[in-house]
């Protein structure tokens, strides 16, 4: 899959020539603007947020001066029931959406990968949900979920799938499922496209050879498709998991900061901006950062382990 990333030949262990030194100076000069922006917009704020998480910084300067409080914020956070619940909500959302998006995305990718008339149109159709902004998609679904005039209730009752109309968003039992459905709808095509890109680089001859040997389609899927698709699968899973863990938009459009359906990101945002507790909110942010980092480490290790036999 790394057609572009051809590694540069190993530099000869020789004294650096004048040309090389000049080259490297020019390269760094070209990088200065980009690095400056990244440092100023990302690295410095990250450092500052970490610093804030050890202070009692408030947005509005109060009577009490801002001071270093050590690990106090993190200690409070550990026992913070609202935060724990938000982690639980986010993790459940992540598991549900990633599993559904992966399974559905795989089915769609396999279907679109086979030759049929209208395949190009199909691929174009798949880009539509992806191109719709998350917030807009959330609004569209919110209207479809309307408890009186929504199409979900209407179609459900007409098709006898529902005995009566429900308030999908305000009922706690259906709220999480409703929000997952939006995310699954919006991002499954993206997962499918990633997997499709992976499918298309698998050489045809492998399947032809398997056909000659009399392997069934199912055997071909398990023995050829899945192993060769592994890099694409892992990338899709990593991207989706990281995205799902920081989910904000859909939940906020559906529930604002309703306590029972708050994600980690919403809790952090409402603590910092809504309540002005910058110090404590920063601790929440750092915790989110660490949780996401944990997932990255797990995935990267998994990739190393499973990729080792190649």
């Amino acid at each position, binding site marked *: 899959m790394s057609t572009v990333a051809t590694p540069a030949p190993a530099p000869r262990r020789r004294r650096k020539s004048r040309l090389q030194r000049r080259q490297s100076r020019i390269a760094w000069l070209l990088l200065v603007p980009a690095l400056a922006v990244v440092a100023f917009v990302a690295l410095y704020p*990250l450092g500052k947020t970490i610093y804030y998480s050890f202070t009692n910084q408030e*947005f509005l300067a109060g009577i009490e001066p801002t001071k270093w409080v050590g690990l106090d914020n993190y200690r409070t956070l550990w026992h913070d029931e609202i935060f724990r619940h938000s982690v639980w909500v986010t993790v459940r959302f992540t598991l549900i959406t990633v599993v559904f998006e992966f399974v559905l995305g795989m089915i769609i990718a396999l279907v679109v990968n086979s030759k049929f008339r209208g395949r190009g149109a199909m691929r174009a159709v798949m880009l*539509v949900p992806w191109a719709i902004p998350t*917030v807009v998609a959330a609004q569209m679904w919110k209207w479809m979920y309307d408890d009186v005039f929504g199409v979900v209730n209407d179609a459900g009752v007409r098709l006898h799938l529902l005995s009566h109309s429900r308030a999908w968003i305000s009922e706690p039992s259906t709220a999480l499922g409703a929000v997952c459905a939006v995310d699954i*709808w919006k991002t499954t095509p993206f997962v499918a496209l990633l997997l499709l890109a992976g499918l298309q680089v698998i050489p045809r001859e492998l399947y032809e050879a398997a056909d000659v040997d009399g392997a069934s389609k199912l055997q071909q899927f398990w023995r050829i498709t899945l192993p060769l698709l592994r890099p694409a699968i892992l990338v899709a899973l990593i991207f989706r998991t990281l995205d799902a863990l920081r989910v904000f938009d859909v939940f906020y459009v559906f529930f604002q900061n309703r306590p029972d359906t708050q994600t980690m990101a919403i809790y952090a945002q409402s603590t910092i901006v809504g309540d002005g507790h910058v110090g404590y909110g920063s601790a929440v942010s750092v915790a989110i950062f660490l949780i996401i980092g944990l997932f990255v480490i797990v995935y990267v290790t998994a990739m190393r382990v499973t990729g080792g036999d190649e």
Partner: protein
Amino acid sequence: MSAVAEAGRTIERPVSRSRRLKRSPLGKVLIKVPFWFLIAAIFVYALFPFYWAIRSAFTPDGEQFSTPIDYWPANPTLDNFREVLSTSTFQHALINSTIVAGAVTLISLAVGSLAAYALGRFRFRGKSAVLYLMLSMTIFPQIAILGALYTMITDFHLYDHLTALIFSYMIFTLPFTVWVLTSFMRGLPGDLEEAAYVDGATPLQVFYKVLLPLIAPGLVTTGLLAFIAAWNEYLYALSFIQSPDKYTVPLSITTFVGKSGSSFQQPWGQIMAATVIVTLPLITATLVLQRRILAGLTAGAVKG
């Protein structure tokens, strides 16, 4: 897929059975039916919510809020579009979003293409470190720096200014731009610049006279993806913008109350008209550039 068609048949050796099924004309149809059914299901699933937004945008309020609902507007109307386009918040939002997303895209492309030139065409120490930094930035959770950004933006007196958004959106557009453009730069043939260097061109001349024209398609795609990302952003806009005349599109769509300002029933027809207006250009651009977008997306993801 063939499992459904095979279900009623006698059991034989699997290979010959599926082969024979494929050869008979009836078998061909039996295999095709579930396949086309699946295609139709995917089609409807992907498009129905958008169809519903269009349908609701053309439905007058009288029909919108009455049961049983119509699946096709009996008396289509443009009233919702007219109403929403004459609302000043929405007009402002369209302009604001264009300014913010446009500025962010231009700055990212300018700064990003220079960096991509260095990363894609030069050999120097620390290159892979810079590449890793950019890659880790593309998966950086925006929420992680909200606290510091919030106080920084207030300190610079940028709170409730569009500049605050242009500033903060760089965090996700720039690393992405650098990453994707680098892969475009690397994709160019190896000794492309040499002739120009022999003729005495400076690196900067090589950059904008030789390389930039060659990666122009890449610039368009990357720019479009950056533009869409900035156009869609919600978290920072919600946190750093307060007055309705500074709202970006996502903010205005989620807080839309219509002209009457009635809070009894949300003006869903108008909201859907707004979503159609906002989404249509994005979908059109995406479809026109779909091949390149797929290449760009997979360069950013699969090749990671």
